């Protein structure tokens, strides 16, 4: 009805004629136009052409026109000029466009709507023609967002598939099926309910090489085993698995293992290992958290980890990071509407996409990892690193004692031809490099293997070492860069290899006595003469090198007699041998500088022998030994 009425109202007469034909008789004209008598002359005068002959009336007419219309004409001309100026020439448009767009955009969305198709087409065209440039331009915005989204989707997908797979075939899965059937709760919910319950009971940060505990955290109320021991055992287990299941343990290493109800998750970094003891089943996202934590620890404590010598105080501030890993997730209902889509196609496609993206991400991670490793290597400074499509380039500084960067690239799987490297030599003051320089410059003592420790710029030498070598070290005035002085208090001088044979014959000689006396017989004098010969050799060789020799003379007595007589008898024997020896040494051309240290031990430190007669004979004796000390170097030591 409304349609009809609207149509009848809006229709004008001539068109309405057909529509209303039934209402109006056809022979009656709707609009009668009767000829009007006065109308024709008016029309004729307005449209009649001017008569050709000049007529004074015409001139008058023109004059009249001018008088009447000139003002109007001037205004008309001005208007025309103004119109011209406002015409849409490109110049005008360029001036006004920005304002206009702002103005319109603030009023309504019409402009955006109008422009959208064009902009879309333009972007499409641009992408088709120069995809590279376009990608470059938007990468900074999109890259992180895409990565994050993919990582999350992937983790969720993989995690839920894993859980569903594991649980549908295991014994636990079976018991959950029964539970589901018994309680009427859908199976998926039972699975997720159980899978989500976990508690992290202890977190360890363990120094990778030594297995020493750097820090640990556990919930305050929980009883936990001795962390030092656990951390040691953890490393031992890791070493054991590494030894048993693959030649190189760097390759994969142990990731998780179970002890009863507990699962230990192990995340390895280059210098430290993070282990989380989990009761229950931790989801994939927790693995990522542990990974992020160990990465964070490496980033934040890089130098402390590199220089770790057993002092854990540098790692006190790592505590909050570990405490962040102590998670307790109680039974929660799974988020509604989240179902695992196990359609094989979806999984296959997702897997391919995920693999592709993972491969690309892996390429870039691999590069940043190898560069991070280079940067973390003492004695290597990377100033520039560029990853190309096929070839890469690195430049920087390298201490001659630092590891070969090329080996690091090769170990990371790079073809060394593809990595162009340029290393300027420099001297690093990093302790490891200083110590390498020291080891190279000081050479090897004979016998002994020195350990070096750097305390500030003081070099501490540790170990039982060749005395002559030690004396030379003590006397040294110039040191490799990074060392200013030396501390030998932890070093113990031992007989140099070159003097082993005189020292041997000296200490294997033994002056024997008849029972109950300290008298020296001919055989005794012969032994003493021999000892004096060797002692002279030793003392003169050592003295020249700045080492003093002290002859210890240990007197003994056999088991007969009282302890006090034995004590004084053994001391007497030692003193007597000392006097005879001293007299011998004074007889030569030059008396060597030898100190004496005679003592009587009675029967306290008996020499072992096969039977009692032999033992008694062997213990009525004085035996020799040599103790070495390094002479203090003359002159002031450099500060």
């Amino acid at each position, binding site marked *: 009805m409304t349609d009809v009425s609207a149509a009848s109202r809006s229709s004008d007469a001539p068109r309405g004629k057909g529509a209303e034909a039934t209402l109006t008789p056809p022979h009656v004209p709707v609009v009668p136009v009767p000829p009007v008598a006065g109308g024709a002359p008016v029309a004729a005068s307005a449209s009649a052409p001017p008569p050709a002959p000049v007529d004074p009336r015409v001139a008058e007419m023109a004059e009249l026109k001018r008088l009447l219309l000139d003002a109007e004409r001037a205004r008309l001309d001005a208007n025309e000029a103004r119109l011209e100026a406002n015409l849409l020439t490109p110049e005008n448009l360029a001036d006004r466009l920005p304002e206009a767009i702002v103005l319109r955009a603030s009023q309504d969305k019409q402009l955006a709507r109008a422009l959208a198709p064009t902009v879309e087409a333009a972007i499409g065209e641009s992408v088709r023609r120069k995809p590279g440039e376009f990608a470059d331009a938007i990468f900074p915005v999109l890259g992180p967002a895409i990565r994050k989204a993919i990582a999350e989707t992937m983790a969720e997908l993989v995690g839920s598939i894993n859980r569903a797979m594991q649980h549908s075939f295991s014994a636990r899965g079976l018991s959950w099926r029964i539970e589901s059937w018994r309680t009427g709760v859908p199976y998926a919910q039972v699975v997720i309910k159980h899978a989500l319950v976990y508690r992290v009971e202890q977190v360890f940060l363990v120094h990778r090489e030594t297995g020493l505990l750097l820090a640990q955290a556990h919930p305050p109320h929980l009883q936990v085993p001795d962390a030092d021991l656990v951390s040691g055992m953890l490393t031992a287990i890791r070493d054991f698995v590494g030894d048993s299941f693959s030649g190189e343990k760097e390759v994969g290493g142990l990731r998780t293992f179970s002890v009863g109800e507990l699962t230990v998750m192990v995340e390895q970094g280059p210098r430290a290992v993070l282990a989380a003891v989990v009761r229950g089943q931790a989801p994939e996202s927790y693995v990522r958290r542990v990974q992020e934590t160990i990465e964070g620890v490496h980033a934040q404590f890089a130098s402390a980890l590199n220089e770790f010598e*057993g002092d854990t105080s540098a790692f006190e501030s790592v505590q909050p990071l570990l405490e962040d890993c102590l998670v307790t997730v109680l039974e929660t209902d799974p988020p509604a509407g989240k179902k695992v889509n196990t359609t094989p196609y979806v999984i296959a496609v997702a897997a391919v996409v995920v693999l592709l993206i993972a491969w690309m991400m892996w390429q870039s991670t691999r590069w940043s990892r190898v560069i991070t490793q280079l940067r973390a290597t003492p004695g290597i400074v990377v100033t520039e690193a560029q990853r190309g499509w096929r070839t890469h380039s690195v430049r920087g500084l390298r201490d001659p004692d630092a590891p070969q960067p090329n080996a690091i690239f090769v170990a990371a799987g790079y073809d060394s031809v593809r990595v162009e490297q340029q290393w300027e030599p420099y001297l690093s003051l990093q302790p490891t490099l200083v110590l390498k320089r020291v080891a190279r410059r000081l050479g090897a003592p004979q016998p002994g293997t020195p350990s070096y420790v750097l305390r500030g710029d003081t070099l501490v030498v540790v170990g039982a070492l060749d005395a002559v070598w030690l004396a030379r070290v003590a006397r040294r005035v110039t040191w490799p860069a990074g060392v200013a002085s030396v501390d030998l208090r932890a070093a113990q001088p031992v007989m140099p290899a070159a003097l082993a044979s005189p020292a041997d014959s000296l200490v294997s000689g033994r002056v024997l006595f008849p029972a109950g006396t300290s008298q020296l017989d001919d055989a005794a004098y012969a032994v003493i003469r021999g000892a004096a010969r060797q002692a002279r050799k030793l003392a003169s060789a050592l003295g020249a090198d700045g080492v003093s020799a002290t002859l210890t003379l240990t007197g003994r007595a056999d088991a007969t007699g009282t302890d006090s007589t034995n004590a004084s008898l053994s001391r007497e024997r030692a003193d007597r041998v000392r006097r005879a020896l001293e007299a011998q040494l004074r007889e030569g051309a030059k008396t060597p500088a030898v100190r004496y240290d005679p003592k009587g031990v009675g029967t306290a430190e008996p020499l072992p022998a096969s039977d009692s007669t032999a033992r008694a004979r062997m213990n009525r004796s004085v035996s020799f030994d040599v103790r070495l000390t390094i002479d203090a170097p003359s002159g002031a030591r450099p500060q």
Partner: protein
Amino acid sequence: MIQKKVCMVGVFGTGKTSLVQQYVHTKFTDKYHSTVGVKIDRKVVSVDGTDVTLVLWDLAGRDPQQDVGASYLKGSHGVIYVGDGTRRETVTDLDDLLRVATAAAGPVPSVTAINKIDLTEQWALTPEDYQALVKRGALFRTSAKTGEGVEEMFLQLARFLIVPKAGA
């Protein structure tokens, strides 16, 4: 707190486990349970006023031909070599073990214990053997049974590990 990793190295049955038990728990038993893999124990010692935790890795006994277990030695700060004075070959084998261990752990400080000195009747080392050993540097005659020399031996190693502070 300063911690140091210390490995016990020696042939089977020389008394590595017994030395650690004596030192840490003041316990000794005549029963012999050969160690499999590694057993870890710990003791805090005070060296000239500095506390240091020795984390003791008691390795399974080994003969020098087999060098498996080198990975346990990696990263050690110190090594204790243990020979058995009643079995001469366990002492002479120490030279080979020293080479194996040094290859794995690097030139770290070490001490040598000639163990079971309480068994004088069965003593198999001649004074000459002993003198040859002295040249290795820090040498101790110990008994895990009576405790003789045990404390001193561990303390000497700790002293090597805690090097004196500069500018004393």
